[in-house]
């Protein structure tokens, strides 16, 4: 057990200082403003700059385009990226997909993409969810039909976040509708520049952009297949397991909670609300002079702290609950000034409480709904039996 600060060697401190000053210069206000306005989860200039330092794939060796960072330096980098609010959705999906590409792609494709992933010019998004599919990914109906050395894709995917900034999507397609649900699926890494691919923006009320991606007679080479034909479920499971991860590292250099990032906007909103509560209002008193305000702030702070330390997939659910309930409570506390939009005259924290409340709702769905994770906890942590549904033995 150890919750202590880490004393850095002079070299490590130098690295930390370097990261911080690099990011101070890189992440300019317009980067954050663009993210707030567009919700891309990505900034090309920043992404490529990180790639130029090998910091998109920090654990890779410099020869492979990485930075060869040890775990401690990776943690320093990670925390500074968070501190600087570097948009990281597309970086995250790219990393997730890479584990499957690395393992299952045609070696020539893998070797072609590796340096581009490292330098930031190749980016991947997730093509999991059919328009009618929801969390039941294995129910995918998007069709891939073999035609010689090519595959022809027809169908659509929802929630392909980042597609507008990616070169490839990690696509699950049905290659044999006659086989049982999980057995007729194949994974592809589809070039988004292929003719017939249409990306349509979907805005969320949380401010983020995602996409519907339509595939009309899209032809791709068999080279872009990952793993065996009809073996897609196994290929998918690497990244999916990572996304649904039950395990946690024990070197103390990872956040215990898989949902740690969900809590970042709540931290900002809480800190803004604490600042507001210390200010003197029109009637000459401060909100913080009212014990009921103090008690409610304390409760939000407790829930935040609980979210930070709740481990693994439990932390994912807790993180979402904490921000969904906590942001609503902060709005109730601050009243109308908390409702004002970024840029509006007098907006509390320039809209940070408003933002946290809207953005929070997405955390209950990202990468599987909280219900999916409750099911995983019930079965894998508590050992409760699985339900048998007509459509599957597996509830994703």
């Amino acid at each position, binding site marked *: 057990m150890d919750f202590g600060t880490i004393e850095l060697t002079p070299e490590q401190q130098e690295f930390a200082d370097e990261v911080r000053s690099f990011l101070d210069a890189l992440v300019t206000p317009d980067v954050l403003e663009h993210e707030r306005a567009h919700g891309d989860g990505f900034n090309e200039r920043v992404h490529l700059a990180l790639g130029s330092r090998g910091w998109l794939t920090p654990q890779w060796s410099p020869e492979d385009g990485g930075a060869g960072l040890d775990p401690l330096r990776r943690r320093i980098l990670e925390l500074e990226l968070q501190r600087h609010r570097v948009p990281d959705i597309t970086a995250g999906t790219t990393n997730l997909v890479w584990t499957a590409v690395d393992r299952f792609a045609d070696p020539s494709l893998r070797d072609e993409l590796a340096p581009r992933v490292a330098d930031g010019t190749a980016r991947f998004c997730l093509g999991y969810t059919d328009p009618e599919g929801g969390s039941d990914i294995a129910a995918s109906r998007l069709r891939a039909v073999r035609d010689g050395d090519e595959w022809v894709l027809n169908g659509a995917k929802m929630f392909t976040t980042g597609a507008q900034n990616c070169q490839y999507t990690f696509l699950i397609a049905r290659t044999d509708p006659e086989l049982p649900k999980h057995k007729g699926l194949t994974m592809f890494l589809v070039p988004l520049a292929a003719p017939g691919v249409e990306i349509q923006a979907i805005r969320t009320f949380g401010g983020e952009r995602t996409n519907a991606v339509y595939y009309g007679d899209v032809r791709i080479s068999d080279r872009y297949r990952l793993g065996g034909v009809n073996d897609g479920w196994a290929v998918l499971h690497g990244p999916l397991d990572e996304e649904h991860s039950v395990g946690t590292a024990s070197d103390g250099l990872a956040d215990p909670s898989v949902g740690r990032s969900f809590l970042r906007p709540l931290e900002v909103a809480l800190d803004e609300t604490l600042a507001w509560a210390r200010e003197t209002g029109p009637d000459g008193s401060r909100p913080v002079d009212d014990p009921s305000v103090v008690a409610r702030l304390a409760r939000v702070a407790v829930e935040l702290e609980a979210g930070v330390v709740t481990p693994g997939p439990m932390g994912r659910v807790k993180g979402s609950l904490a921000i969904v309930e906590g942001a609503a409570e902060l709005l109730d506390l601050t*009243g109308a000034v908390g409702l004002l939009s970024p840029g509006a*005259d007098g907006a509390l924290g320039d809209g940070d409480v408003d933002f946290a*409340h809207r953005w929070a709702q997405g955390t209950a769905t990202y990468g599987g709904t909280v*219900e999916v994770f409750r099911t995983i906890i019930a079965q894998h942590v508590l050992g409760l039996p699985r339900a048998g549904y007509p459509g599957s033995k597996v509830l994703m």
Partner: protein
Amino acid sequence: MDRFELRRQDFSLDEDQKALQTSVAEFFAKQCPTGTVRAAEPLGFDEDLWRRVLDLGVASMSLPEARGGDDATLVDLVLIAEELGRAVAPVPLVGHAVATRLLARAGASDEVLAPAARGDRVFALAPAAVRNGRRQLVPDAAVAADVLALSGDKLALHSAAGPAPHVANQGSTPLAWWAPDPGQERVVLAVGDEARDLHRAAVAEWRLLTAAALVGLTEAALHLAVEFAKTRRTMGVPIGTLQGVAFPLADVAIAVSGARNLVWKAAWLTEHEPGSRPELPLMAFDYAVRTATHGTTTSAHMQGGLGFTAEADASLYFLRAKGWSLLAVGPGENLQDIGDLITGTD
């Protein structure tokens, strides 16, 4: 309070009330589809729709006959507000009706009252007492040049040349910063305890009508999610057969049914036995606000990723759940007001 008192607990509507409810529901269903709501964003004011709402007579109907009204009751207004909420209609009816009733109760002259009763201009209520002349956020003040406010011991109507600049906000309502301008026209309506009592009663009415609107809004959100759960399938079954979906929706239905009844009971008692349960409108507001927050969150979530998109109607309800609730109440103020009433420490 005698908790075993013999009282009716009759929540049924009479024929007139049913007719009113139906006609208003049909009006909004026809005149205010969700496209109209979106088109009015971000200001949250559709002037055409507002004209048509005024044509229904709702601005003046709850005034006494002697003041040009129809003697409609607070119960009638609550029924109307519920339908307005169901349609998330971008009209400043709640604030305007409350302000108009306040003018009448304060004995405003016909000259002052008539433009409000006719709806020539939008009238608004400043929810907090003005302190040191400092500005406050006033609902509808971005479309209302006439603001009723309590300053010191005076309740007055402040009429400016035009509405204040809109401040963009989560609920897309015509919210604005407002402060009394010494250069503005001002009509003092009441002073001293009377002024404070009138203002307090008006704020309670605002909370009650807002509660009613939130009930309608939340039920609309619930309805969306229920329809989704009936048709959307996972694992070969409609998701509505899963207890993880059905139970949260049942919980929203439970909350909505209770919030509605609480609003109705509060409206009836405020109308027919003013002063007997002054905490009830505030309780209805507290419960409706929480019901709306939880209900619209649940509704959006039960529609999965789709429910999180801006184009889904779930978003309209979700954003107004807080966007309407927090317009006129300071931090914890409503709960504190309830507590003061039930502990007798006011």
